[in-house]
């Protein structure tokens, strides 16, 4: 919106003026009214003061007149008094007019009351009194009450005077103050007006002068040709308008200027272009001239008119065609025709160029010297305004030479094409051959290839040394015939000749439908290896037509190629076979084999290695990096780091020999000891190509080794101890003079110890024999009870334990090596004694059990820990038990026993409870009487629990009696030693006891009988004496012996007697039976 500066300033000035006028006028009015008010108040006060003064003076006059009257009784005075009274009353009414305060009103009322009383009461009373000359009454009257009001009035007038004066002073002061204030305000207003004036001027200057300066600058800038910036246009006043106009003007000027400039430039450009055109034209002309020169140099240029007549020929034309200018110009082109055949060719050209288009092409022309030239031609028609050609220009390039070259090239190209095809075929063959592995495939490929190339009617390709062949066009019979013929002669010929050709007459089959005799050609060619030996033979037949010599040569070439490939195939087959063989060998070796490269990456591994290392498939498939296989291998190894170090060492260092290492592998919860050796592998040039590791599972060997070293230790101990005694005592005997008893004692000891040594050595020898399988067993039928009895006989002198033999068997025949069996039983019994260090009863029991003979040896000894039972019968095993340490032994006894019993098809086992004792059992197959259920039944039926004890040191007699008693169903217990027998009798329930009188040194039969009879538990036990001594009746009587049999007596006598006992057991207990004789 446009805002004029003028109107702006006018409006400001008017506004200021109006405000000043209003304020000044208002203030003036206000001041005037205030002053008026003051003036009025002052006059009022003054007036009142006058009235009060008048009132007072009238009162005083009145009183003065009254007194004058009183004193003088003058009537004048009395009139005067009455006037004055009237005055007073007038003044009083005036006072009433101005009395505006309450006090004044009260006073007024009092004065009215007073004057009325004075006038109506006092004055008449006083007059009366005066008149009566009653002055005393007058005095009383004067002192009574009236004076109070008078005094009050006088006080008031005095106070009113003071007050009026005071008020007048105040009014005056106020008037002066108001005047001063007015003066001050007027001054301030003037100052404000001046300030406003200054502000207006300041703004006026600012709004007018600065934009003018800016405009001046802009104008200067415009003059200097600079851009004028449009920065004042925000103003809406005259300056803004001026600026706007100025800006528009500047812009207009600039635009015009630019337009002029561009027009100028355009003109310049047009001028440049023109001069360029001119230059170009000049160049063109030069170019054209040059081109013409160049064309004259290389091309034949002629112009021909519409009738085909030469009008111009250039130098080159003359030079090339050997026609002179004068010979050509004026003649038609037809003079240059080589033959009539070319007429059509020219007709074609003519047709094209007559229609107005350019012709391009090659053509041949005759020359002046009678030759022929080839020209690359362009014929351009010149057309008149009707489109008809009126002249032609022909430009030709001599291409005779290149044409000839081209023909030659074509020829050689076709030659190359042929060679290429051939080579391709060769290539195909080579490719096919190189892909083939295996003789069969190879022969097949080559054969089909050859047949593809040549049209043989029949053909066979076969290997000389192997029954591999392919055939075509032949019956199987013919093929077989051909293959199986001896070809050595043919082969021999083919060694020296590349191929053989045989021409022959056709056979009937080959003749076919042909009427004329047909000739047939047979070809033979061989595949020779580098040494000239024939590896394969190709036989082929063509019927009617021979194969051309070239083809035959080519065939030879093919054969050479085939020979190389065939050799390769054969070698490959051979290598493959031996590789397979090697792998098979490696895989079947019982050792883990592992081959690693020189950097330690695993290259090959055999099956066994796979198994050892827990065979992970990836190990088998491809080369595994060193740290990978090493981690996999040593994962379950106990001495892992050591093993890894060993691998590292072998891989990094050269070893002509081998490095050894053992490691322990945990596999399926078992501990395996593996021995591994690593050795460097070198190639022919002594370069190291890797390392081979051979892992061998030596767990068994290791165990054996350990067992053996344990054995050696044991044996050493076992041998050295008796040896110490032998040597020691011998030395004592030799070096010292000893008493005979001591000598005897030493010799005894030496003997015993030497025997112990012998036993030991025998055990070792036995074991050695058995291990090597050299032990011979002398098998014979023998009675087991006899054997047991014999063995037990050897333990007769054992006093520490009570040995007894309980025979519960019925059948006793077995097939056995008696000596070995005795060895086993001896061992078992001596073990029973040895391992029962606290003594006790050792029972050997013989029983029949289902086709088996079972011998049980029961001891009350140490027993065997459960975990040791399994290993008990293995070689070199001794139970590690504190109690047993003092018990010597080789640890071989039970192993030997087992070996022997195994050889007897028997078995040996043990039942044991630690601390309570053991029962070792041996079972052997029974020989006599297959013991089926029935016999078992019957035997058990007749087998009564009646037990008879035989105390007899004569084994054979004991056996004889035992046989007899067993046959009668008795269970027989054998004892040798009467003391042991006694101990046993006390514990056992018996039917009877059979006693020999001549027993051991310590106690004879009679002593035993005496003991039995004295013991209340056994005194009723029937006793039978079996003795060689004559019967002593006295003693028989004394001890109530039941029966006395004098040896020799038939065994059945004993059994009869005993059977009697059984029958009369109850009633005849304790009775002595006398012998019947």
């Amino acid at each position, binding site marked *: 919106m446009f805002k004029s500066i003028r109107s702006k300033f006018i409006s400001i000035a008017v506004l200021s003026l109006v405000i000043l006028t209003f304020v000044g006028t208002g203030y003036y009015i206000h001041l005037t009214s205030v002053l008026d008010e003051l003036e009025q108040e002052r006059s009022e006060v003054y007036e009142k003061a006058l009235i009060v003064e008048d009132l007072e003076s009238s009162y005083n006059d009145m009183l003065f007149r009254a007194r004058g009257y009183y004193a003088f009784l003058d009537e004048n005075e009395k009139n005067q008094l009455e006037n004055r009274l009237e005055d007073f009353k007038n003044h009083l009414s005036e006072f009433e007019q101005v009395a505006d305060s309450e006090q004044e009103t009260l006073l007024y009322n009092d004065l009215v009351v007073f004057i009325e009383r004075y006038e109506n009461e006092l004055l008449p009373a006083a007059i009366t009194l005066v008149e009566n000359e009653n002055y005393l009454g007058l005095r009383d009257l004067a002192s009574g009450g009236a004076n109070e009001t008078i005094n009050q009035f006088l006080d008031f007038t005095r106070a009113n005077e003071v007050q009026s004066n005071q008020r007048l002073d105040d009014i005056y002061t106020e008037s002066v103050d108001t005047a001063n204030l007015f003066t001050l305000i007027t001054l301030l207003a003037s100052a404000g007006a001046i300030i406003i004036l200054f502000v207006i001027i300041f703004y006026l200057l600012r709004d007018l002068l600065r934009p003018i300066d800016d405009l001046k600058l802009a104008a200067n800038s415009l003059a200097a040709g600079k851009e004028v910036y449009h920065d004042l246009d925000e103003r809406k006043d005259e300056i803004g308008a001026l600026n706007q106009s100025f800006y528009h003007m500047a812009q207009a000027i600039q635009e015009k200027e630019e337009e002029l400039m561009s027009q100028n430039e355009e003109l310049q450009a047009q001028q440049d272009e023109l001069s360029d055109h001119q230059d170009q034209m000049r160049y063109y002309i030069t170019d054209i001239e040059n081109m013409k020169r160049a064309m004259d140099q290389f091309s034949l240029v002629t112009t021909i008119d519409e009738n085909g007549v030469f009008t111009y020929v250039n130098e080159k034309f003359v030079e090339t065609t050997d026609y002179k200018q004068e010979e050509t110009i004026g003649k038609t082109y037809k003079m240059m025709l080589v033959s009539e055949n070319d007429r059509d060719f020219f007709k074609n050209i003519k047709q094209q160029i007559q229609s107005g288009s350019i012709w391009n092409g090659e053509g041949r022309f005759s020359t002046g010297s009678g030759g022929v030239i080839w020209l690359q031609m362009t014929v351009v028609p010149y057309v008149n305004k009707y489109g008809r050609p009126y002249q032609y220009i022909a430009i030709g390039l001599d291409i005779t030479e290149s044409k000839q070259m081209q023909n030659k090239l074509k020829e050689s190209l076709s030659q190359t094409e042929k060679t290429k095809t051939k080579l391709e075929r060769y290539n195909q063959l080579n490719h096919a051959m190189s892909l083939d592995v295996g003789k069969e495939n190879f022969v097949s490929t080559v054969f089909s290839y050859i047949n593809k190339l040549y049209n043989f009617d029949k053909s066979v390709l076969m290997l000389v040394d192997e029954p591999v062949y392919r055939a075509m066009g032949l019956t199987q019979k013919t093929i077989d015939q051909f293959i199986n013929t001896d070809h050595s002669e043919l082969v021999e010929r083919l060694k020296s000749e590349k191929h053989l050709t045989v021409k022959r007459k056709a056979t009937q089959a080959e003749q076919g439908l042909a009427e004329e005799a047909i000739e047939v050609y047979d070809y033979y060619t061989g595949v020779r290896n580098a040494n000239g030996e024939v590896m394969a033979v190709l036989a082929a037949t063509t019927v009617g037509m021979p194969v051309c010599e070239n083809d035959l040569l080519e065939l030879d070439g093919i054969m050479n190629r085939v020979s190389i490939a065939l050799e390769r195939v054969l070698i490959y087959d051979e290598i493959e076979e031996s590789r397979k063989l090697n792998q098979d060998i490696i895989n079947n070796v019982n050792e883990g084999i592992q081959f690693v490269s020189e950097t330690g990456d695993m290259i090959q591994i055999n099956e066994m290695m796979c198994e050892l290392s827990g065979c992970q498939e990836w190990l088998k498939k491809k080369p595994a990096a060193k740290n990978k296989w090493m981690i996999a291998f040593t994962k379950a190894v106990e001495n892992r780091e050591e093993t890894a170090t060993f691998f590292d060492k072998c891989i990094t260092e050269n070893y002509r020999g081998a490095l050894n290492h053992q490691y322990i592998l945990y596999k399926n919860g078992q501990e395996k000891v593996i021995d591994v050796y690593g050795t460097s592998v070198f190639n022919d040039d002594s370069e190291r190509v890797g390392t081979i590791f051979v892992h061998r599972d030596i767990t068994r060997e290791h165990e054996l080794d350990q067992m053996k070293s344990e054995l050696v*230790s044991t044996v*050493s*101990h076992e041998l*050295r*101890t008796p*040896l*110490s*005694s*032998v*040597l*020691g*005592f011998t*030395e*004592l005997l030799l*070096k*010292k003079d000893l008493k005979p008893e*001591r000598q005897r004692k030493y010799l005894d*000891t030496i003997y*015993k*110890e030497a025997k112990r040594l012998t036993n030991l050595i025998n055990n070792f020898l036995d074991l050695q024999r058995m291990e090597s399988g050299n032990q011979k067993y002398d098998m014979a039928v023998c009675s087991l009870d006899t054997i047991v009895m014999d063995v037990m006989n050897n333990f007769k002198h054992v006093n520490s334990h009570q040995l007894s033999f309980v025979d519960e068997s019925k059948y006793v025949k077995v097939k056995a090596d008696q000596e070995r069996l005795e060895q086993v039983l001896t061992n078992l019994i001596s073990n029973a004694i040895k391992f029962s260090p606290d003594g006790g009863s050792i029972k050997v029991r013989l029983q029949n059990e289902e086709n088996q003979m079972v011998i049980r040896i029961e001891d009350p000894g140490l027993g065997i820990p459960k975990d040791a039972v399994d290993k008990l019968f293995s070689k070199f095993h001794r139970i590690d038990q*504190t*109690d047993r*340490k*003092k018990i010597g032994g080789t640890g071989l006894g039970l192993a030997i026993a087992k070996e022997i019993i195994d050889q007897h098809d028997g078995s040996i086992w043990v039942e044991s409870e630690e601390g309570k004792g053991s029962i070792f059992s041996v079972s052997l197959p029974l020989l006599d009487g297959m013991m089926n259920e029935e016999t078992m039944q019957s035997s058990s039926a007749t087998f009564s629990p009646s037990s008879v004890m035989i105390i007899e040191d004569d084994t054979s007699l004991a056996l004889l009696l035992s046989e007899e008693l067993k046959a009668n169903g008795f269970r027989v217990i054998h004892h040798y030693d009467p003391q042991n027998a006694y101990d046993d009798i006390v514990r056992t329930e018996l039917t009877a006891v059979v006693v020999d009188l001549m027993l051991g040194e310590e106690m004879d039969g009679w002593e035993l009988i005496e003991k039995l009879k004295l013991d209340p538990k056994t005194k009723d036990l029937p006793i039978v004496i079996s003795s060689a001594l004559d019967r002593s009746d006295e003693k028989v009587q004394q001890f109530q012996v039941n029966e006395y049999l004098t040896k020799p007596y038939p065994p059945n006598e004993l059994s009869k007697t005993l059977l009697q006992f059984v029958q009369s057991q109850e009633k005849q207990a304790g009775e002595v039976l006398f012998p019947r004789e």
Partner: protein
Amino acid sequence: MSKILVADDEEILRMLIVDTLEDEGYDIDEAGDGAEALDMLEKGDYHLAILDYMMPEKTGIEVVKNLSNETKTKTKLVMLTAKAQVKDKQEAMEAGADYYMAKPFSPSDLVDMVNQAFTEGLK
């Protein structure tokens, strides 16, 4: 003080040693196993003890190892072993034995050794 303790579970061998040394005038006590030997050595006052290596209850080495220092200093210890391997001797010596004798031994050698032990002890 010239008492000797002979500890061996083999009675015969014990007899050999006892007879040999008694002839030389030594006063000898016998023990049948390792535990007994240890007990006797600690309670008695022996100048020399001949201990078999392989004994029940406690081996000779165990006996030596379990002896109090007091007993060790006052008693010379002879280890008798049937395993004549170098490492056995080493083991015996390391355990604290003073002498070592392998079985089989010559009684006169034993006498020599015992005599030597006694003269050394007197020095």
